[in-house]
């Protein structure tokens, strides 16, 4: 982090520090959000390959943003404060994804394969929906929308940092309170119920936390598909236990190292030549295939 703040800093510190500090905070928030959302999701689904992103939940968020522009128009949107809009989007996101989660996981017990397939189809569906709406949009509005959507690790939406931080703190507090229950959830639904967990309530609460975290990371840097999977599986390997007391911080830490470290190298060494997301997605995708392959062989 120090390296990120200092290397190659020429010029006025009054500019460098807030500028890079904001970016750094953004990266840390994203790292936390993606890592936590993934670990929680994998605990609930009892599966080490599924992540919210693979299941298309960040596409849902993008579709939501597009729909908002589509139906309200940028002029109306511009009058609303950006932070307010973010919160509004988040509430919508939580409501929608809870409905989806509920339908997929809780209303009936479905086979995992079906759930994965449905997730992938939903992902494509939401993406196509966004594309379709973007095609029909007025060109001016489309540009405004693109501006919203094309966040990347380089251009973090700094305006949203304060709101995101608050939101992240709240979810962190919530997941801390649920820490012991999370371990029990790993034993599977029946055992968890037997041990006195109010399964439905706890799982819905966790889904809400996940939806919020996905919104935060997508709003800040746009969709990232395999990053969560990558850091989560690295974390499980690193701590050799499955207790959430250890896996959650480990995943977050690895995510921070990967993002901040990667961004530093990218900016200072390669001089912005490549996008960090490309590299992360590439390694994450490889990890995904490796995990699939290993699971098939078992």
């Amino acid at each position: 982090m120090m390296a990120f703040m200092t290397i190659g800093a020429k010029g006025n510190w009054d500019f460098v520090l807030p500028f890079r500090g904001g970016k750094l905070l953004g990266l840390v928030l994203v790292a936390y959000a993606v890592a936590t959302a993934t670990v929680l999701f994998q605990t609930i689904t009892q599966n080490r390959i599924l992540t919210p992103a693979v299941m298309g939940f960040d596409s849902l968020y993008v579709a939501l943003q597009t729909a908002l522009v589509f139906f309200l128009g940028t002029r109306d949107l511009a009058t609303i404060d950006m932070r307010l809009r973010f919160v509004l989007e988040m509430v919508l996101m939580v409501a929608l994804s809870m409905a989806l989660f509920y339908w997929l996981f809780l209303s009936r017990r479905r086979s995992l394969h079906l759930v994965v397939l449905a997730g992938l189809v939903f992902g494509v569906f939401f993406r196509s929906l966004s594309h379709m709406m973007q095609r029909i949009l007025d060109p001016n509005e489309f540009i405004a929308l693109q501006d919203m959507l094309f966040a990347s690790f380089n251009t973090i939406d700094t305006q949203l940092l304060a709101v995101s931080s608050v939101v992240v703190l709240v979810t962190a507090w919530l997941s801390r309170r649920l820490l012991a229950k999370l371990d029990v959830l790993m034993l599977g639904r029946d055992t968890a119920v037997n041990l006195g967990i109010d399964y439905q309530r706890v799982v819905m609460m966790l889904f809400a936390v996940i939806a919020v975290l996905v919104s935060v990371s997508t709003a800040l840097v746009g969709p990232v598909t395999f990053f969560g999977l990558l850091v989560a599986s690295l974390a499980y390997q690193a701590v050799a236990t499955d207790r959430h007391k250890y896996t959650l911080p480990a995943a977050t830490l690895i995510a921070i190292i990967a993002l901040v470290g990667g961004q530093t190298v990218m900016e200072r060494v390669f001089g912005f030549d490549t996008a960090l997301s490309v590299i992360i997605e590439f390694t994450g995708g490889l990890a995904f295939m490796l995990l699939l392959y290993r699971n098939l062989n078992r």
Partner: protein
Amino acid sequence: MIEIHNLTKRYEEAAVVDNVSLTLPESGITAIVGPNGAGKSTLLSMMARLIAPTSGRVLVDGLDVQATPGAVLAKRLAILKQNNQVGMRLTVNELVAFGRFPHSGGRPTVEDKRHVDEAIAYLGLDDLRTRFLDELSGGQRQRAFVAMVLAQDTKYVLLDEPLNSLDMKHAAAMMKLLRRTADELTKSITVVIHDINFASIYADHVVAMRDGRVMLEGGAVDLMQETMLKDIYDTVVKVREVDGHRLGLHYL
């Protein structure tokens, strides 16, 4: 006492458990027997609130299992289903310690540790304490799960086919252990069991089911009648007395 009132579970139109009313005693071993698809496991799952019934109620010491908070019930009633798969890598000790969760809420006390130690000793798992579950044989894993349920220290214990994947020696040992647990710790243990002879020898109370209905509620002697067994299983079972126990010979 567990009271079951007019309990029914339907999937689509087919009733898996059809208007069952039963009373299970405060202590001793109750065996639920019956052919495949008789609704035994479904009944057990509904008793332990794992499955919501289509209609009817289950009361555990007067508490409605659908309405009572899960944490309260978890101190009174424990269930172990068959085919327990755990998504995480756990040692035997850690698994058994999870049985204390309803009491400790994740912060084990000295008292909790004592219960865990006792349960592990009770099932003869001392040597395997630090082994991971995926390193154990099917029978050892089964015993570890039973230890977890015993560590939960509930008055009512429901076991769904606890003899699955146990060999002759361990199956008999498990039944003796359940007998001892029921007697020494005055618990009420309900087991779904396939082997009618184990039911005949070890159970105080027998419930026989077929096609979602209760065919018989009574003692082991009532079950071990050739006509009764024919009605339940639709196959000829000869009953012979050996050393004072009535045994069914379904191999002939």
